[in-house]
């Protein structure tokens, strides 16, 4: 990143802090199968009543196109913020069609999904340039030191944009949000189960605080 770009980003951050936004474009990021779309569905359903935002599946890379839901108004902590929520495809550094065949897909379907998944990753990366903040969803049952997590956090820090870590899948017995907190202690973290909705009110309070 060049000197002028750095200066421009710093200036924009100052301006946005001085004139606190009440509308923000927030990207939901994370590795495949962390529960991004489940979380997006939960937020949109809770605040707009719309039943579903995107489809979920145990097969990785179910979301292969970014989807935006505009004007989701969240009220918490006595304040209100309007969000444009962008549910992004899972980010990955490798995509092998054979992984999809392990889920019962035939070779043609698996190759098609792999091709679309690579395009989805590129789309997710492109969206980073156009966001006011990120909800980084991590699977609390998995090792948090994945390169996707490290890279997304590094990029948000470099851009000096707000980031909130969502430690998802708290409903599972092997969930360990403490491991995520220990890995990235400099960032705020909220533990939730997007599937069951547990602790989701704490997430809304944190969203209002961080992005409002």
């Amino acid at each position, binding site marked *: *990143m060049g*000197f002028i770009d*750095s*200066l421009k*980003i*710093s200036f924009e951050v100052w301006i946005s802090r001085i004139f606190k936004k009440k509308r923000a474009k927030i990207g939901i990021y994370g590795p495949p199968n962390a529960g991004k779309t489940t979380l997006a569905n939960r937020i949109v359903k809770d605040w707009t009543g719309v039943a579903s935002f995107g489809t979920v599946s145990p097969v990785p890379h179910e979301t292969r196109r970014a989807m935006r839901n505009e004007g989701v108004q969240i009220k918490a902590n006595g304040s209100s913020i309007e969000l444009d929520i962008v549910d992004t495809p899972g*980010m*990955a*550094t*490798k*995509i*092998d*069609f054979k992984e999809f065949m392990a889920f019962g897909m035939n070779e043609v379907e698996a*190759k098609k999904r*792999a091709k679309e998944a*690579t*395009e989805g*990753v*590129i789309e997710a*990366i492109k969206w*980073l340039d156009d966001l006011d903040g990120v909800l980084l969803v991590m699977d609390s049952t998995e*090792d948090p*030191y994945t*390169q996707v997590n*490290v*890279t997304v*956090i*590094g*990029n948000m*820090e*470099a*851009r*000096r944009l707000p980031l909130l870590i969502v430690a998802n899948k708290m409903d599972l017995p092997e969930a360990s949000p403490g491991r995520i907190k220990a*890995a*990235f202690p*400099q960032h705020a973290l909220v533990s939730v189960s997007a599937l069951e909705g547990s602790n989701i009110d704490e997430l809304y309070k944190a969203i209002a605080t961080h992005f409002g």
Partner: protein
Amino acid sequence: MDLISGEKLENLTSMEKIRLILDKVKTGRIVVLESGLTPAEEVRLIEMTMTEIRVDEFSGIEIESYPSKKEGSFFDKLLGRGIKGRMTVIGPANQLRTIEKDQFQISTKVSVGD
């Protein structure tokens, strides 16, 4: 395996670094970067990798670096330059596997002749 010095990386543009890494990794080499990549370069490397994935030829990369560490002076932070790249290991996804990683150590396994 190629260990690339920080000095060499400093003299390359972002695109040159990414091209150098991908060209090596696609021929089966493991690359260790002494001073790593910036977060912006890491994300561009992932983007370029996605465009080069080919069925039965190249399924992507395994890349591991440490979580970022904020450093630098007040003016570095003011200009958003407070984050420096850290040692990074990159290899073909079908040959390099990360076994364990934490803030201070990356343990990987390299398969030969896959």
